[in-house]
């Protein structure tokens, strides 16, 4: 039963009071400082797995996130959740990310997992390779399960890496090509957290280049990324 006054948009799932309190808390968190040096402070590298490649329709299956703090990947500052699905995704899809049917149907309650994700991210800027996909998937899921508009700044490494290393720009396309170029190993490609670890290593390199490519601050670095449009 929704109260008469509801602070969130959209049709309301039954968000319990404790959860509502957590969301309020998240909203009240202080925004990151765009003028801080790019290397200082916290970035959150994110990767999602979904039931397909249609960001507008397919379901969010898993979220991985890993923090880069003051220029270092903090392995303890990491997050992974498999969201409970009503029915497993297709076999072809499972073969991509390796999250099996049982793991999917016995996953975490999406509301709790996503609230944890919000708490993990805070108001720090997000990082991904091909960020629009991750961004839309998360936005849809958070809106659907929590009734919250997840509008955050995203740094898309697919945009920034070619700027940082123009000589590779024409040759390298896709995360795999960049990882290979820099000999960054991935233990389980397409496992969200493993992809995060690889992407985060690319991010460490980008942070070293940031001042050189005219982006000494976090805000300027985000500005280089076309994905900054996701900040609405």
């Amino acid at each position, binding site marked *: 039963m929704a109260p008469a006054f509801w602070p969130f948009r959209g049709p309301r799932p039954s968000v319990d009071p404790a959860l509502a309190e957590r969301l309020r808390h998240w909203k009240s968190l202080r925004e990151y400082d765009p003028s801080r040096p790019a290397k200082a402070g916290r970035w959150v590298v994110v990767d999602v797995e979904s039931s397909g490649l249609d960001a507008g329709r397919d379901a969010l299956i898993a979220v*991985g996130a*890993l923090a880069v*703090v003051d*220029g*270092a*990947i*903090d*392995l*303890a*500052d*990491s*997050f*992974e*959740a498999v969201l409970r699905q009503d029915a497993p995704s297709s076999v072809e899809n499972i073969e991509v990310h390796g999250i099996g049917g049982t793991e999917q149907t016995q996953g975490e309650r999406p509301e709790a997992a996503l609230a*944890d994700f919000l*708490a*993990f991210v805070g108001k720090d800027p997000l990082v991904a390779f091909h960020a629009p996909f991750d961004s839309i998937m998360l936005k849809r899921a958070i809106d659907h399960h929590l009734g919250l508009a997840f509008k955050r700044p995203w740094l898309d490494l697919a945009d920034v890496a070619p700027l940082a290393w123009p000589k590779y720009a024409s040759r390298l396309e896709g995360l795999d090509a960049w990882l290979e170029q*820099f*000999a960054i190993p991935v*233990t*389980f490609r397409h*496992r969200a*957290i*493993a992809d995060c*670890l690889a992407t*985060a*290593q690319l991010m*460490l*390199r980008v*942070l*070293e280049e940031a001042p050189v490519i005219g982006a000494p601050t976090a805000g300027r670095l985000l500005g280089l990324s076309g994905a900054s449009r996701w900040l609405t």
Partner: protein
Amino acid sequence: MSSRPPPPLLLAATMDVLRRHAPFNAMHEDALERLAGVLKLRYFARESTILSPESGPINALFIIQRGAVKAEEPSGVSLNNLAGTFTEGECFPVGALIARRPTRLRYTAARDTFVYVLDEGAFNQALETSAPFRAYCTKRLAALLELSTRGTREAYAGRAANELTMASPLRTALRRAPVTLPQGASVREVLELMKSRRIGSVVLMNADGFPAGIFTQTDVLDRVALAGQPLERPVEEVMTKNPASLPASAALSEAAQLMARRGFRHLLVLEGEMLAGVISERDLFGLQRLSMQGLRKEIAQSGTVDALAFAAREVRGLGTAMLAQGVASEQITQFVSALNDAVTERAIELALRAHDVAAVGYCWMGLGSEGRNEQTLATDQDNAIIFPDPPAGEREALRAKLLAFADEVNRTLDACGFPLCKGNIMARNPQWCLALPEWLDRFDDWMRNADPEALLNATIFFDFRALQGDATLVDRLREFLLDKVKDRPAFLRQMAANALQVRPPLGLFGDIVVEDDEGGTIDLKRQVSRPFVDCARILALSSGVAAVSTVERLRGAGPRIRMSDDDVATAIDAFQFVQMLRLRSQDSLERGTGTVEPNRIDPDTLNSLDRRILRETLRQARKLQNRVALDYQL
């Protein structure tokens, strides 16, 4: 930060990376997990500084995930490269972290490098909870060596378990049922059977089912190929008829003796009158496990050169067996040296039967590696004679007598597996069969005129030791040497320059630089062992240390030249490691599994641990060279 447990995959991936390296591979799962869970991963672009003395007291351990890190004197005076390079899996700066002091060196990324950072709290926790981690951090090289020794022991364990004593009956050593053909078979049929069964011999049976002869691989060459015999001939025309046999209850040692006495490589083993199998020389030596005492006795009681030669071969078998048991190389070389000494003494005693020189009061000297007690399994002869100066006019006649005697000893030793010295540094050479005053002149001359030949001679002859006879002559020669060398700084400086000519094959990134035209190998003797030996000799001579072995020289000279006990111990560990590698390499050569050159190894054939220790050993060799370079301002 979330209160959730860390993603298991992230942890597993990190642990996987760590587990490829010591000490993490020896750590308990829980301890490793705790450590891996709190690591941070940092990136350093090539040439960027990771740590320097200005960074202040160290509060974290750096573990290289991938890439390489140079450590250099901050003054930029890196020509000595005292510190070297760290590569994947290596940790720094352990000493500074434990002491919570700033690092002395500047650490720079030699390549684009990712390092794990373990903060002080977690480091201390790991020190407290994990014995392997503590051992590694507090005694880095020693811990690595111990792991390696354990590895060696394990590698040989499978074999050792199967090893029998020489007292076991032959039937316990038979590995397969005998392979036979009728004696009427053609040579071709025999060869095809040998090939398809991969065996070295076939027993030919007569019509009654009893062995009539044996045909072996060596016979193929001698009696068929070189003799130009057609393959269609019946094998009975070329086989060895009535081959030697022993009952299955006979001891392995009997078989070994029979083979040695008669020069057979194969014996038939009979149960009653029936053929039970064939035992080959190779089988026997694969099984050999001999006691030191038994061997000594056998050597001392050898009545003939042949018997002595057989005992000398067993000495090598013992070396292998000890290696298998993980005995430290210093002990192995000492045992092997002791037994080789016994062989030499016996060879001399045998020669004394025909040569009346015992009353002269000469002394037989071992030189070079024999002088240093550092013989590996394949060592050629380096020896000389020193004798008291006889009354005027009798010197040449006495020398002639001693030379004839020495010639016999040298030949006996050759028969015992110590090949004649190619450089003719042997007692039978009139140049090296000298009266005491002649030796003193010779030594003095080398030290005065430090020409290349004198320097080369010094590296061999200054490592001398009394083996048999009147040792006081040798003592007097040594006193003279130590006394004179003090006044010859130019000579020592030349020696030092020589010792620095061959640099350990360590690359810019701490990698091992192989010689491509030598099949991607390095020369353990010339490039790794010799720098230790040469530097130890210089340090000992310059500080008046009388010891001859490299280990004893380092131990003796260390305190006098203000090398810390740790540095001395580490250098010794490193030297012993390379000696162990040489032993192992020679051992695999004898087993036909190694490279052709006994002292060459391909670092890629080492396991990752040994490769790392080898790198550390190369660093130690370089450090010792740098020490000598500093002393002589080279």
